[in-house]
């Protein structure tokens, strides 16, 4: 009975978080469509494989069609997110829309997480109207949500892993100059120069290399240990806020906009129900 109560509580909470995720998807689609508007009149796009079949169709037609379809289906998802068919059709439209919006020679990665988590949420099953979900369905849904959490955290760990690998590679190659205090400042200077952008804190951090290095090491630790945090539910809230702060930091320091991703750690970690020892989601009802 106690387990049943806990699963009910977790599922009710997760249902609201799935809804919050759908809202984020809707806002992200609007953001994606408007930030890609400058590419609409492109004459010679390099279409990504999911939309390669549309080669020959004017790009602005593809752009208009995919964005309208995706926007309408995202709005429908907000209203009828419990219908699996709407989820499936929405996912297909989102997949095609993101592919079209990235067919200009550079693949942006700010919509990838949204896409993959939408794919995972196809596995959620909701009861028909006026019926309550069985306990087994609820347990499965809790597990799918847990998998989405794992997915989110694994991407941060991968990001930390490649940074660590780069450090190790330099060490093994005897390139010890890379371990100087100026390395982080140099990276900030490089990214700002490469993007031809100016940021609020970038210039200050380039001149204060020790602070920049400390922030870089903190970021590395935050990212690399993200996956391990799964085993420490008490830290989820703080970790979610820290990851969100990391995105705010990259915006202020590097002027890199990952707005679509910024809210996901809050939904999947800070607001997520934290399991206790007695209510393992792996327990079968």
């Amino acid at each position, binding site marked *: 009975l106690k387990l049943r109560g806990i699963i009910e509580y977790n599922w009710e909470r997760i249902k609201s978080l799935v809804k919050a995720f759908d809202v984020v998807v809707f806002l992200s689609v609007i953001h994606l469509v408007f930030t890609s508007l400058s590419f609409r009149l492109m004459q010679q796009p390099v279409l990504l494989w999911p939309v390669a079949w549309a080669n020959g169709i004017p790009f602005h037609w593809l752009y208009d069609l995919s964005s309208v379809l995706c926007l309408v289906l995202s709005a429908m998802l907000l209203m009828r997110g419990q219908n699996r068919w709407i989820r499936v059709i929405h996912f297909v439209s989102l997949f095609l829309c993101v592919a079209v919006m990235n067919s200009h020679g550079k693949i942006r990665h700010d919509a990838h997480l949204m896409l993959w988590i939408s794919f995972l949420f196809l596995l959620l099953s909701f009861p028909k109207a006026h019926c309550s979900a069985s306990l087994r369905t609820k347990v499965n*849904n809790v597990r799918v949500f847990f*998998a989405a959490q794992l*997915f989110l955290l*694994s991407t941060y760990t991968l*990001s930390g892993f490649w940074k660590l690998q780069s450090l190790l590679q330099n060490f093994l190659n005897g390139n010890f100059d890379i371990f100087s205090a100026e390395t982080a*400042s140099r*990276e900030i200077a490089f990214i700002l120069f490469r993007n031809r952008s100016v940021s609020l804190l970038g210039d200050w951090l380039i001149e204060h290399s020790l602070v920049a290095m400390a922030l870089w090491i903190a970021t590395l630790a935050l990212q690399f240990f993200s996956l391990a945090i799964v085993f420490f539910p008490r830290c989820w809230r703080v970790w979610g806020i820290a990851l969100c702060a990391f995105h705010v930091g990259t915006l202020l320091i590097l002027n890199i906009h990952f707005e679509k991703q910024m809210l996901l750690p809050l939904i999947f970690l800070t607001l997520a129900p934290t399991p206790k020892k007695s209510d393992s989601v792996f327990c079968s009802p």
Partner: protein
Amino acid sequence: MIEANPTPVRRKNQVRWLRRYFPSIAACSVVVIHFLIALNLSANEHDEVFPFFKWNLFSSLHESVVEFEVHVAEFDGQIISEKKSYHDLANLFPAAKSYESYVVIQALGRAFTTDNSEKLKQMRRMFESYYLGGHTACYVLSLVEYDPLEKRRSSVVQSRIEISRFCTGEN
């Protein structure tokens, strides 16, 4: 021991077991498969297969940066004597300040140096029609090496090697 022909009761149990655990197994498989693919994409750094990504954002560390650069030598029949990077010509080309233009120039340079004529043709077509705004222009592709901190302080580059010159409408 695996039975060759399971009894109907056992088969029913197997189906029930699969139905019970399918969403969990499928969800975990997606996470694991994505993680493994992301780890193994390392060998092929520049050719990304959408929607997979290895999440190596800002992972490289540089003492000095070696990259391709484009400067426009002729624009609508006028010779531009000052050697300015394409990215600094936002007054002529609105797309010049975008990060996408940087990525396309790097892809163009890589295609040229690796003799990938198909990719080079594709990148040139895109660069000339969109990033050069459809103007008639001649541009020089160079390989530059610089220390980002030095460049920021004094605009000095360590070396610049001109690789090739292209004109719009030429093959």
